[in-house]
């Protein structure tokens, strides 16, 4: 056994244990913390498997934003009448047998597949000069599979609309987390906010050449918004509802618009002419980053329930 395999086994073992504890922890809030650890460990897995773009996205979105949203919800509904109740439709031995069967089937099927041997990487590489970006993942996202990514931005928009539609009457993000944060927290925010904005810009610009891109940049901006929301000054409350809606939509609309421009220039939808591809992709990515940031921060800020006793208290 090599040292590398030992590392792989330790990492996979830690991920699996964290996942099991996150769901089954006796105390809900402890499980939520371990879920955040699970996200960070998973981003280490992405680094190990040669996917740094995913590592950034997982750390910022999977562990960071999702973690903050679940933690906030656990604060409201963390009480369980019984400790960690479970459904008991089946006797214990039967449910364990079924679990083992499912696990064996998955592992069996996965192990019959060997690592990829197709020529997709070579084909992506060959077409790169026509796309105008050097980061292959960005090229796949914005150009080769533009439809997927466009609809993905659409899913974000639908989630934002759903959250807005479910708002309790009279609820607004500005009314959440009304407390007097310690000066230390405000001071740290004053240092972290400009740094975070700079980092988001860097990730956006860097995304055409190295790991990074619209989603990572948007997630970092959203993280800043979450920080400010926790301190009682949510950025989302500073813009009018109309402006907020415009910011939610701009990524989806701009993506389509640039795609249509490509059509008028003689290509298919999202088939940018090589000479213009780089600036067109940057225009799309900038708008998508803004929409991702506003959507994710709305998903956190608008999640509170009016009339819920935990609102307005110390987070």
């Amino acid at each position, binding site marked *: 056994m090599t040292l590398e395999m030992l590392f792989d086994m330790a990492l996979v073992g830690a991920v699996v244990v964290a996942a099991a504890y996150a769901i089954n922890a006796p105390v809900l809030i402890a499980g939520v913390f371990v879920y955040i650890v699970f996200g960070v460990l998973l981003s280490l897995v992405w680094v190990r498997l040669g996917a740094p773009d995913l590592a950034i996205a997982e750390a910022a979105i999977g562990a960071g934003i999702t973690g903050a*949203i679940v933690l906030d919800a656990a604060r409201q509904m963390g009480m369980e009448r019984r400790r960690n*109740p479970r459904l008991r439709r089946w006797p214990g031995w039967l449910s364990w047998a079924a679990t083992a069967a499912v696990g064996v089937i998955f592992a069996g099927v996965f192990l019959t597949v060997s690592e990829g041997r197709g020529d997709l990487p070579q084909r992506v590489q060959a077409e790169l000069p026509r796309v105008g970006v050097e980061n292959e993942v960005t090229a796949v996202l914005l150009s080769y599979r533009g439809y997927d990514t466009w609809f993905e931005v659409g*899913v974000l928009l639908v989630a934002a609309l759903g959250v807005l539609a479910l708002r309790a009457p009279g609820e607004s993000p500005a009314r959440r987390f009304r407390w007097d944060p310690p000066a230390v927290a405000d001071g740290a925010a004053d240092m972290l906010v400009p740094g975070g904005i700079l980092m988001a810009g860097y990730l956006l610009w860097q995304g055409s050449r190295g790991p990074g891109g619209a989603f990572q940049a948007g997630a970092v901006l959203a993280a800043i918004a979450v920080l400010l929301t926790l301190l009682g000054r949510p950025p989302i409350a500073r813009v009018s509802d109309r402006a907020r809606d415009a910011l939610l939509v701009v990524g989806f609309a701009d993506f389509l618009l640039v795609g249509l421009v490509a059509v008028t220039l003689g290509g298919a939808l999202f088939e940018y002419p090589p000479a213009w591809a780089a600036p067109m992709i940057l225009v799309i990515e900038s708008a998508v980053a803004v929409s991702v940031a506003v959507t994710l921060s709305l998903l956190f800020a608008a999640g509170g329930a009016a*009339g819920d006793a935990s609102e307005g208290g110390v987070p």
Partner: protein
Amino acid sequence: MTTFGIYAVGAALLLTIGIRGALRRKHLLRRILALNIIGGGAFLFLVLLGYRESGEAGPDPVPQALVLTGIVVAVSISSFAIVIARRLNARTGRTELPEEGLD
């Protein structure tokens, strides 16, 4: 066992743990966490398909882009689900779905 094998077994375990959790746990937040862990297992297997242990070509970027899409969709779905769960909790005080004939 190869690197591929180790991570493939990990992906299978994540899927199994997640499915068991989503079916057995009653608390809605735990179920949402379980769904995210199922997602993690599926993403791990997808990325693994594009992983190349040897060879000149780097890892396959196509599954990576798909998983990046998946991560963003997962956060949208889970936060929407959480908002619904919080509304239910604020209105009824419940943290679980009512079960016909059980409970």
